[in-house]
């Protein structure tokens, strides 16, 4: 079973994952930051309370000039632990009995985190001077006061946790919204894909029209796909239509030939005829039948040639034949026709080459091109066949001195059943398969065929075929005058 992948799901999951990662990083950063801020606030409040305790240390107004703690006006939280001592270790006031903390005698406040009972406390140790009767000549009595003040640090943690919780809830909420919005957006963003698919679904063998929807064409990511689809379908449609035209043309051609044979025989049997009439009628019918046979033969040849070569003879090594011998055969074959119209066929060879075509097809190729040239040659003109071999490729050109070829015909002259001149009837035109067969033979071995107008007038057919040079490569020129 193939695994199906949803782009929507992937995108949403990716985005949510990234969002989660950044949220975790953000919460981490916020925790550190919040901890610091809260600690600063906490410490400031410890210092402030300790300072106010310090301020509450009063002169007891006795001879010993001792000090006392006056708690009036000092607000200390209920769970706070503190102890105020003077320099002799006399406790002026305390609550919850905080531990004794060793501190060096310096003015700067010292903070300590200590466990009291089961609670974590943060203590501040503050040392300060208290001078009793500073206005006296001896400068008064100095009392160095040590204040240890602490409050449970869980408040601190509580604040930080509150902040984290707020951000976590906000993140979860945002992720939920993101998931919905993303899913909706991605689906909306992918709607051109669905439209493209719907459009493509309408294609059937009878309706090849395909126009990519505008939404797909406007989507940058879909443009290549839409264009490729359109192009591929246009190509398919063209080839499909070519096939259809071929079938229809072939049917037309065969029906006409069959109609001739049938009518010839039916005419003969319309009434009783003399032996001589029967003889003539049969001869004509046979001629008509031969034409039908040749049409079928050509169609079968074309069908055979258009089949991929692998399926025919993959096991056999490619057959080679001499191009020169083949051309000479073709010229010999067409000699009566050339002589009839006193056309000279001249051959110009530069050596001989082997072409990877079996001799039967090679002869078909050469004689079809030659016959085409002869058909388009005026009486008394010359047809020139030239062969030029060059590094694995041989170029065969057949040039006539006829009226040349129009641009319109050039494009379609190799299509099956195409007859150049629409005013030409079947009588003179043959079946219109000759050049198609040539094209099929050339392309089967990876060669090419084209027709053009020669600058000096007349049409020139050029066939390029892969070739191997044969032993003798001496320049030869021979001429065959058909008189």
């Amino acid at each position, binding site marked *: 079973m193939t695994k199906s992948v949803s782009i929507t799901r992937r995108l949403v999951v990716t985005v949510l994952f990234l969002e989660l990662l950044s949220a975790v990083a953000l919460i981490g950063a916020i925790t550190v930051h919040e901890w610091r801020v809260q600690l600063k606030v906490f410490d400031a409040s410890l210092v402030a309370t300790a300072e106010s305790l310090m301020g509450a240390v009063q002169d007891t107004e006795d001879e010993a000039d001792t000090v006392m703690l006056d708690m009036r006006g000092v607000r200390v939280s209920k769970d706070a632990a503190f102890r105020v001592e003077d320099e002799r270790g006399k406790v002026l006031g305390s609550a919850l009995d905080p531990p004794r903390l060793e501190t060096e005698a310096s003015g700067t406040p010292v903070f300590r985190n200590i466990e009291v009972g089961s609670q974590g406390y943060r203590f501040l140790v503050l040392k300060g001077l208290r001078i009793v009767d500073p206005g006296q000549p001896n400068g008064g009595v100095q009392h160095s006061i040590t204040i240890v003040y602490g409050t449970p640090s869980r408040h601190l943690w509580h604040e930080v946790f509150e902040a984290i919780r707020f951000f976590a809830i906000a993140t979860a909420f945002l992720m939920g919204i993101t998931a919905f919005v993303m899913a909706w957006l991605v689906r909306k963003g992918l709607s051109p894909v669905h439209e493209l698919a719907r459009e493509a679904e309408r294609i059937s063998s009878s309706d090849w029209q395909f126009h990519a929807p505008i939404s797909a064409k406007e989507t940058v990511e879909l443009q290549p796909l839409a264009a490729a689809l359109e192009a591929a379908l246009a190509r398919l449609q063209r080839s499909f239509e070519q096939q259809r035209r071929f079938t229809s043309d072939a049917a037309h051609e065969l029906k*006409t030939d069959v109609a001739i044979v049938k009518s010839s025989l039916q005419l003969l049997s319309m009434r009783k005829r003399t032996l001589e009439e029967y003889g003539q009628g049969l001869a004509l019918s046979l001629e008509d039948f031969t034409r039908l046979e040749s049409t079928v033969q050509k169609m079968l040849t074309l069908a055979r040639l258009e089949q991929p070569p692998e399926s025919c003879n993959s096991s056999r090594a490619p057959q080679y034949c001499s191009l020169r011998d083949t051309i000479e055969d073709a010229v010999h074959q067409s000699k009566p026709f050339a002589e009839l119209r006193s056309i000279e066929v001249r051959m110009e060879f530069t050596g001989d080459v082997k072409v990877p075509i079996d001799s039967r097809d090679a002869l078909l190729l050469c004689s079809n091109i030659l016959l085409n040239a002869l058909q388009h040659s005026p009486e008394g003109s010359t047809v020139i066949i030239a062969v030029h071999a060059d590094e694995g490729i041989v170029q065969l050109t057949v040039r006539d001195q006829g009226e040349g070829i129009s641009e319109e015909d050039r494009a379609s002259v190799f299509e099956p059943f195409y007859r150049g001149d629409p005013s030409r009837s079947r009588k003179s035109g043959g079946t219109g398969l000759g050049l198609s067969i040539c094209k099929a033979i050339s392309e089967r071995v990876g060669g090419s065929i084209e027709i053009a107008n020669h600058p000096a007038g007349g049409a020139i057919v050029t066939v390029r075929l892969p070739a191997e040079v044969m032993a003798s490569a001496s320049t030869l020129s021979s001429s065959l005058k058909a008189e």
Partner: protein
Amino acid sequence: MRVLLVEDEQRLAENIVAALRETGLAVDHAADGETGSHLAEQDIYDAIVLDLMLPGKNGQRVLQDLRRRKLHTPVLILTAQENKESVVSLLNAGADDYLSKPFDLGELLARIKALIRRAKGVSTPVLVVSDLELNTVQQTVSRRGRSLDLSPTEYRILEYLMHRPRAVVSQRELLEHLYDFDWEHHSNVIEAHISNLRRKLNVNGSEPLIETLRHRGYRLREGGAQ
């Protein structure tokens, strides 16, 4: 009766022409659309057999041009295409009948004859004018039950006249409809044939059927026996 065949396929045309002539029809052949169109518009044909795929001008256009000129000659289309749409569009364009290739020669002849008959307002192959009977299939003529032996030309003249009883038919019309371009045109040939025909139609003192109207032509009388 004279038929025009427009068909570019030489051998097929030869066969159809031969068959049509053997059944007593005069036939002209055009090998391309333009010649066919030109001949058809002379309005001298009793039926036209038209191929569709023609060089120069296709059959459909030949037909359309003919109908545009208000010529109502019956047209039978020969086609190698068989799709229904083309048949429908052809009939809508003014064709009277069609036959797809390869067709049966006998069927083609029968259809052409039927087309000619219908165009002349007759629906059976046996034509009857008073006591004269003419069978267009067997090409036999009888009067008062007695069969008459006519030459092919005499038969054709009588057939043409019997298709148009009581109408005055000029010598020129007879020439146009009975002979194709392969024949020499001589009006006195017609006169000779008419006089032979008159003689042969005269069965034991019956009324003469063919009237001669000086400088106008001939007329087949109906009900002349009464």
